[in-house]
């Protein structure tokens, strides 16, 4: 059974890493774009 758990752990691990990566990157990109937009709006 412990051998089977290695496959389960691999599937869970990859899913967690990929989900965090795509969520984190999307969040960081959104924050950077909105800050940039706010900066540009402040210019005259």
């Amino acid at each position, binding site marked *: *059974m412990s051998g089977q758990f290695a496959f*389960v752990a691999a599937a869970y691990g990859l899913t967690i890493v990929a989900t965090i990566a*795509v*969520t984190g990157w*999307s969040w960081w990109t959104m924050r950077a*774009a909105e800050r940039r937009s706010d900066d*540009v709006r402040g210019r005259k």
Partner: protein
Amino acid sequence: MHIYANPLKFLSIARPLTPWLALGGLLLAILGGYAGLELTPPDYLQGETVRILYVHVPAAWLGMGGWLALAIAGIVQLVWRHPLAGIAARAIALPGMVFCALCLVTGSIWGRPTWGTWWEWDGRMTSMLVLLFLYLGFIAIANAGEERGSVSKVAAIYAIVGAINLPIINRSVVWWNSLHQGPSITLSGSTIDSAILWPLWLTLGGFSLLFGAIVLMRMRAIIADIRSEARLKRLAAR
């Protein structure tokens, strides 16, 4: 529908909705994942590997659902010329591709101990691999266009035509002999025992909410970039 064509109106809804979707999705996915690991019995045939179900099925659902959303966005863009449709399509493509790839990888990890092989060129796996290539093609076409933040008509048509692969994926296990099991969850019920099934609804709901949050974040980023560019052009023209 055109009420939300105004980005400011859309942002007034998307801004408060994004953290709720993200946090709600995270909570449900963690609860479902934990329940799938700790609170359900092993399958009498597959043993512990059945627990891969709780991440594999949401990934498949979102990989296919993502393309369906791309096709709908393509129709909305071409028929109603809704300005947010192309932005939504661009935002959906990356998370859709990631979950499609996750579906293939977790399915392969499930296949090795269950079927004795990492990969088989059968209808289900091959059509899902085709979906991954369709996503890559869409992202390439979308990035090649000149449209600011949106996608070209070619990309919208490509998304609509590519949707023909979705019923093929769905029916592949019925039409052709496959190592992959037949449909387990249909409109008439489920062949999975309820003791194993229930955490799947949590992970399905959780990852779907997270997907929604990711799409909103990416749409907000695209809209912010469009507004920055428009403002800079106005300033440069003075």
